[in-house]
């Protein structure tokens, strides 16, 4: 679109500022089922989102096409929207800021369909050959995406950012007696020719076989370790509490707690969109604000909240560069990017040995519903395995873990060394806790 023309027209109809956000995305997905390609999905999307301010009030609209013929109706809509806003908070768009961008050294080699088919065929064969209890390969999927973002505004800002990903996913199901269990495994793949299929299949099949024979446990309080995937999923679900907007409005459980000890001193949380170990880096957020590394929790002390432009202006501070959009169709939302709990020094096995007897939780379910985000209370279905004499004894299923997230995080005994980023933008190592309420039989 002709940005200058739209910006000039926006000023003519009385808008103060205009921002044009353009996202270009291409995607390919291939899935495999029972010996052949099951589905193939290809897409090419160019989408636009416009934000405008009027008297410090902001309005937003997303569009698929942006021909000049619709310019007036779109800009008038933005004006009507901004005039509706009656809240006292104000916002202005971002001026250009100097920053030295970083670049991820990761390069992706886009495979041919023949290469994808061949990898899928081999994977399926090896999963089914791994153990007679595995009766189904429920999914094998390849996905490659490329995304680029360009932000231009009437204050002279023009920034660009880009990202890419290639992932290989497989899932399978196993049966023992009448019990069926399933699991899946995801790998980021830079070059499909270098994918270690044996290792991938081993991780997947060990995961699903390890769940078989699971039983519940008597209701009670147990020593618990949240394995890295479970810890990551719970922490990811809790992360909105760091939103400067919700804290400012008093509806985050972190409201009024800046500078206070909120977690155990074993816990340090860092958000760094420029982290080179992660899948992608972002030099700018989706408002064009340069990103930077922040320590959100420093040895248990709440030291920094996340801000976008609007929440930072309401709080009288600077944006932390965390105003991100899920896509061009979504509004700017305060979101961490490449955020992690820093790892410790010992392995998960060593933490189990230290625990002696207790439960390792490997997965949670229902995270979208089982958490009260005002109080940080949670009650969640989970599964894992029971540890006796410091080693895995048997798998555990159909139990719930319940408590208050802050109480739990004050009870941390140690973090493990097993942090990995893979495809995630939020990640955690395994974490050991003194006790947690478990409900079972």
């Amino acid at each position: 679109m002709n940005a200058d023309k739209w910006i000039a027209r926006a000023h003519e109809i009385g808008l103060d500022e205009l921002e044009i956000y353009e996202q270009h995305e291409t995607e390919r997905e291939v899935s495999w089922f029972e010996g052949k390609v099951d589905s193939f999905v290809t897409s090419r999307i160019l989408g636009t989102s416009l934000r405008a301010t009027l008297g410090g009030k902001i309005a937003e609209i997303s569009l698929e096409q942006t021909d000049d013929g619709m310019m007036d109706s779109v800009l008038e809509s933005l004006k009507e929207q901004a005039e509706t806003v009656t809240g006292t908070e104000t916002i202005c768009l971002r001026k250009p800021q100097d920053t030295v961008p970083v670049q991820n050294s990761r390069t992706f080699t886009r495979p041919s369909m023949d290469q994808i088919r061949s990898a899928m065929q081999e994977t399926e064969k090896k999963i089914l050959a791994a153990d007679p209890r595995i009766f189904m390969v429920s999914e094998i999927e390849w996905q490659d995406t490329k995304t680029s973002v360009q932000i231009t505004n009437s204050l002279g800002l023009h920034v660009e950012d880009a990202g890419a990903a290639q992932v290989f996913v497989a899932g399978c199901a196993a049966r023992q007696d009448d019990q069926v269990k399933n699991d899946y495994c995801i790998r980021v793949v830079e070059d499909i020719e270098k994918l270690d299929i044996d290792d991938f299949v081993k991780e997947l099949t060990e995961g699903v076989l390890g769940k078989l024979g699971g039983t519940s446990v008597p209701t009670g309080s147990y020593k618990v370790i949240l394995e890295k995937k479970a810890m990551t999923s719970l922490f990811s679900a809790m992360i909105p509490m760091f939103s400067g907007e919700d804290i400012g409005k008093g509806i985050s459980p972190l409201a009024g707690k800046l500078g206070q000890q909120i977690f155990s001193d074993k816990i340090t949380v860092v958000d760094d969109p420029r982290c080179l170990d992660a899948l992608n880096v972002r030099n700018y957020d989706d408002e064009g604000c340069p990103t930077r590394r922040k320590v959100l929790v420093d040895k248990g002390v709440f030291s920094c909240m996340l801000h976008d432009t609007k929440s930072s202006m309401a709080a009288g501070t600077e944006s932390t560069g965390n105003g991100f959009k899920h896509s061009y169709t979504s509004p700017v939302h305060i979101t961490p990017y490449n955020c992690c709990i820093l790892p410790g020094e010992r392995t998960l096995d060593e933490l189990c040995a230290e625990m002696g007897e207790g439960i390792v939780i490997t997965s949670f379910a229902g995270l979208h519903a089982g958490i009260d985000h005002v109080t940080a209370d949670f009650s969640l279905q989970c599964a894992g395995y029971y540890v006796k004499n410091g080693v895995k004894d048997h798998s555990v299923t159909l139990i719930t873990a319940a408590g208050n997230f802050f109480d739990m995080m004050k009870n941390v005994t140690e973090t493990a060394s097993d942090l990995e980023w893979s495809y995630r933008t939020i990640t955690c190592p395994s974490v050991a806790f003194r006790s947690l309420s478990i409900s079972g039989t």
Partner: protein
Amino acid sequence: MLTQQELEKYLTLCMDSEGDFAEIYEENEFSETIRTLNGKAEKTERAITSGIGIRLYKDLQSVYGYSNETDEASVLALINDLREAVGTAGDKAVEPVRLTRVEYENNNPIRIDFREVSMDDKMAYLLRAYQAAKDYDSRIVKVRADMLNVHQEVQISTSEGRLIGDTRVRTRIYVDAFSQEDGVLQSGGFYPGGGKGLEFYEDDTTPEEAAREAARVAIVKLHAKDCPSGKMPVVIDNAFGGVIFHESCGHALEATSVAKNQSVFSGKFGTQIANPCVSAVDDGTIPNAWGSQNIDDEGNFQQRRQLIKDGVLTSYMIDRLNSRRMGMEPTGSGRRQSYRFEPTSRMSNTYICPGKDSFESLFEGIEKGLYAKKMGGGSVNPQTGEFNFSVMEGYLIENGKITDPVKGAALIGSGAEILMNIDKVSDNLARGQGMCGSLSGSIPTDVGQPAIRVSSITVGGTAQ
């Protein structure tokens, strides 16, 4: 939307391949969200969504492409990608596709089109909600009230010659009330909606009713105790309580998982899967309901599907592709969030049918149990049947009586087991609204049930 002539040309080109079926899905959607806090408008967002999704079948294989660029060159490039993926035809003779438009009577007419109502008038509904919540109790300290309005037009054409369209309008109000006492903050929410225009707020649920319900829950939670843990009988009340059936059984009755033998209910057609007191329906034809459509997103008319009759499995929910895999007719259940998703079998308005027991009788004989008055959301693993869901508002049952409010309860179990453990079904059927997430995106669905009693289920809580 593309013209009939353009569609015929594109579909004919699609069929000039090894594909045996082609479908073009077109979508134009206008949506609008108004967000308020304490009676002040904080944000307004609008989105104009417009795109095309093209699908080719070759036996049980599906290739799908989508784009928001609908000029001829872009569409032709997309079709060529798909033809290449499914295999080009060689010397196959291709019959030109000729489309016939299917007309029908709109089952979901609306009266007040939100696009013709000013922002100020829409804000007025939210201000009414704010005031009602504040007036409910002086301990209500914050009120968040948002409104979502959606107007979606779709057109679906197929190589079988069918051309059909639908217009879907829906509105929903989201009220969250925050209560505070002695430094403790709690919240309650209520989010009613319908497949209607703004008349919903006069005819169905007023903003005041939505706000008072949210405020009531927020106040009750101020004095809720920790919920006990362990296996116990549970009475789950009506309306959104139906999320238990949606999660524990509904998803496992979708062809998405059934067709590939990835459901606990695969191969169970015609067998007893629930207690005989349980009958259940998925009905996409309820006029103006939140999950209703005239046609599904594959162009087939929506239907009323009797999923379970007196405990016997009588129907799955089947989309077009999985109907091939299963050798059964599609049931008009192919749904998708938008053109960016390939459709698959999904629920519409799913509920347990009314039974013969009175509400009061559900509590008889329970020495110690849980009354789940309002449910939160949940999820299920269709392959294992394991489900979980949270209780937003719960009470203890002691010696047959409802006593203290409790917080932090979750219910978990396996779908096949719980269907057998429903031992009483009352007669107060009501439905509640939700957004259901699955392979083809997030779609509006109603859940529903009369109050039911589950004789034994695992309750997760913090009290011992």
